[in-house]
């Protein structure tokens, strides 16, 4: 049994900075849980508290049913992979991997067998006598993994383990870590700021912002049924487009454009029924905005095109929609895209729309998301 439970866990630093607010969730035995969020959201703090490297201010943390609030890291039976790998530079790869077993007092033959097994699993056999300084980034990452798996711990904790690798290697290691976790079936918590990593690796993903848990769910549910504006914008790349709009009966007014919302939307979002000049925040993903000339729809808007990014398999259109733009509150988002207020649409590469045109954009209105302007939570 190595389920991890957090109950109303808080972290307040000496300078009164409240880093984590009432964090509560369960991680099931064998589950791959990803903590994701922008920088400073408290995801690493939460991981370090589970590791025992940060004290818990209040709340309860249980690993395998045992309350571990005041248990030393060494006695929690968990292994951790650090962002910097934290390999011991004076030890060889073999000694690095063997170290936790030596500390556990295992017999030498057992240690040798386990190190060899871990090295085979991670394809490190030929590197066992090298020092970390001689290894490439990917190899170092593998050694860090080896040091974690060799112990057969109750849980793995991984703090942005791929962030120091180049993009290509990151994709490769992402798949390797995910498949290793499935093979070993060990409860894993993985921290990342990269939502693509979160979506592709996690059984479930916990989205955090400002020390507050926003939503814990499967990647697909986070994408399809986000609980609030922040999750809606954070999950998915390019981000969901968010604008203020007015709903009157079945008619949605978005800036100077108006269109009818399909009946089905009101079936699964019953509280939208009977709206009379109701202010809402609407969200629409780029793939639900198409070239009306190619895929017409009953919900069409027109907007000037400021930029076309032709990617071969698709074209990303930047549109200037004349409705109030909504800031999702992701502090890292502004750096990602230059013109943050432009809507992004994923058009077919066959589209002939060019920058400077007024595009007719067909919205897949059944896929629209609705949020309360005050609470920014989803309207269902």
């Amino acid at each position, binding site marked *: 049994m190595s389920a991890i439970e957090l109950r109303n866990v808080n972290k307040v630093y000496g300078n009164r900075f409240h880093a984590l607010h009432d964090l509560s969730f369960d991680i099931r035995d064998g589950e791959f849980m990803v903590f994701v969020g922008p920088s400073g959201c408290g995801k690493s703090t939460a991981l370090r508290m589970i590791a025992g490297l940060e004290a818990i201010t209040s709340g309860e943390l249980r690993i395998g049913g045992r309350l571990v609030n005041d248990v030393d890291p060494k006695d929690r039976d968990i292994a951790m992979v*650090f962002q910097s790998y934290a390999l011991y530079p004076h030890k060889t790869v073999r000694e690095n991997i063997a170290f936790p077993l030596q500390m556990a007092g295992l017999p030498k033959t057992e240690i040798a067998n386990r190190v060899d097994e871990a090295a085979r699993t991670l394809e490190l056999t030929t590197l066992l006598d090298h020092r970390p300084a001689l290894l490439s980034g990917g190899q170092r990452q593998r050694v860090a993994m080896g040091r974690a798996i060799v112990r057969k711990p109750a849980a793995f904790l991984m703090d942005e383990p791929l962030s120091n690798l180049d993009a290509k290697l990151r994709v490769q290691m992402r798949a390797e870590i995910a498949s290793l976790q499935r093979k070993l079936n060990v409860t894993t918590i993985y921290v990342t700021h990269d939502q693509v990593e979160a979506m592709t690796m996690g059984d479930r993903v916990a989205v955090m912002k400002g020390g507050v848990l926003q939503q814990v769910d499967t990647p697909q549910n986070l994408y399809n049924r986000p609980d609030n504006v922040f999750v809606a914008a954070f999950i998915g790349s390019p981000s969901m487009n968010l604008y203020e709009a007015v709903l009157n009966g079945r008619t949605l007014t978005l800036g100077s454009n108006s269109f009818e919302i399909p009946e089905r939307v009101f079936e699964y979002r019953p509280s939208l029924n009977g709206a009379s000049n109701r202010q809402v925040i609407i969200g629409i993903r780029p793939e639900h905005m198409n070239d009306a000339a190619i895929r017409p729809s009953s919900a069409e808007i027109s907007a000037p095109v400021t930029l076309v990014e032709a990617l071969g398999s698709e074209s990303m259109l930047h549109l200037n929609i004349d409705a109030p733009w909504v800031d999702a509150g992701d502090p890292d988002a502004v750096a990602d895209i230059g013109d943050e207020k432009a809507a992004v649409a994923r058009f077919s590469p066959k589209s002939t729309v060019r920058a400077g045109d007024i595009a007719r954009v067909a919205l897949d209105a059944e896929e629209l998301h609705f949020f309360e302007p005050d609470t920014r939570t989803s309207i269902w």
Partner: protein
Amino acid sequence: MRRARRFNINGILINAAALVLVLSYALPYVYLLTTSIKPAADVQQIPPSFLPAVVSLENFREVLQSSALPKAFASSLVVAVLTTVLSLAVAVPAAYVATQYRRRITTLFLLFALVTRMVPSVSLGVPLFQLLKSLGLLDTIPGLVLAHTSAAVPLALLLMSAFFEGVPKELEEAARMDGCTRFQAFRKIILPVMIGGIAVTGLFTFITSWNEFLYALLLTSEATKTAPIVIAEYNSVYGLAWGAMTAAAVLYSLPVIVVTLALQKQIVGGLTFGAVKG
């Protein structure tokens, strides 16, 4: 071709500058060496000569046959080794805690160590004399070791703090996750990683004690007199024994040179520690 030529000119300029630097440091020592191997009569000749006309080891024979110098060497060695061990034993853990567990009090602690370096050691001579006298440690090895350690610890603390600043906090954390207590993590992981820094600090501490003159003069007399005092005493009532003095000084400088050469790898590693990302 032009590029290669310019590179060569740069190389020559750099080497020439390095040579000037090395000569300016080495010249006094070379003069000490050449003086030590001159016959006694040539040492004080006017005008002085840089190179000896005849090579003679009589100055060395004289100082080695004197009863005072070998004993003083032994005192110096014991005091310097004990001071180094004691200073490192105090400064290494203290610097680690002060840098890795940073609190306001640890910052103050390091600042205080820096301030003690600003106090002229001569002003501490009299209080130290009285302190050791009241403890019955005047003219004893432990007394001088304590005095030297009090002078060496702040330097060792500041040096080790600078080295520890370069150690990623994750190393200790990884060790703790791997089953170590905090102390085990320090002993099994941090200390071996810091061996270069410890070697450099140890060497500086050793040299500080080995060369120390003022406290040795104030706090010792016949029993534990160290070599710098004995060397200075060649300036006797019978005049300046330049030959013997330079021979003794050459002999006295040898251990430091030997230790520095032996630890060269660690020293270079220590001084460049953290300079490049591993």
